[in-house]
């Protein structure tokens, strides 16, 4: 792919992304959302984060995969424990990534 085509593709990607991100904030602005919508959106952070964790851990190269040999699957458990015990984002990330690094070093 030529440089100009790549540039145009990137500009297109950023245009649609910005449109998606900005539309609700620019259009809805100060208007009040319907109560039903607001009630549903209350659960958005939990729903979207939970889904993305599962996708990151269980989808590899676009396909559902679950392997006992995959250290990132096991790493979910100490990371969840660290998050529940400390409720500290920094500690949670450090425990999760630390676990994966250590297991890979030990397992070679």
């Amino acid at each position, binding site marked *: 792919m030529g440089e100009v085509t790549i540039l145009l593709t990137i500009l297109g*990607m950023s245009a649609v992304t910005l449109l998606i991100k900005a*539309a609700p904030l620019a259009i809805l602005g100060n208007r009040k959302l319907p109560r039903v919508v607001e009630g549903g959106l209350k659960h*958005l952070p939990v*729903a979207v984060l939970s*889904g993305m964790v599962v996708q990151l851990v269980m989808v590899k190269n676009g396909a559902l995969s679950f392997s006992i040999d995959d250290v990132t699957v096991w790493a979910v458990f100490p*990371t969840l424990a660290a998050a529940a015990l400390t409720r*500290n*984002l920094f500690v*949670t990330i450090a425990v*999760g990534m630390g676990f994966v690094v250590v297991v890979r070093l030990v397992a070679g």
Partner: protein
Amino acid sequence: MNQASKSSGKLNGWRDVARGVGVISPVLMVYVAIGMAYGVLAVDNGIPPWLAVLMSALVYAGTAQLVGVQMIALSLPALSIIVTAAVINARFFVMASALVPHLRQLKWWERTLYATQLTDATFALHIARLPKTNASKTEIFTTNIVGHFVWVGSTIAGVVVGQTAGNLDAFAIDFAMAAMFIGLLVPLIRDRVQVLVAIGAAAATIGFQAMGASFWTILIATLVGLLIGWSADRWAK
């Protein structure tokens, strides 16, 4: 009097900057890891370095960028790459909608600026923080700007490392984003309904991925989670 309030205003300004940095700081190591990994992947896939960095500055959405450079490397049609980015990023439409009630103090152009720097992490951080504190504009935008700069800076680092044949596989980069999302997610779960929502969305992700929903999976699973939460709330009442 006037001068005193002015100087205390200045102090408040710096305190808000410090707070803004404090809010984003835990996720910065993940931004560095993923930003560098993206930069390496981009140049390895033959994307010119300056365009890889430009994508980080303009698109600023990790998953869409990682998928995007791989599709560009395969020389797929530009339109299909752009549509894929839109599908992957569709979740941000829901996130931005959820932030609307908490960003009322911003003018429309400030909200638009906010939108250009909206990410999964800043959404999760702000949706937890803004309803509880009256965070100032300075704090909010400091958080966003620092995140954006670190993302672009890490991409530049990755582009440089990638060209000099670095290998980042040994680190835990493939788990960095998951660890960050777990750390953002768990403190948000406070009652049984939210446990149900988390499990429901997780199960829906597996189900729809298995059914071939591909890049649509997250949006659909999220909506399933919202529906579960909304129904459970009504039933509990």
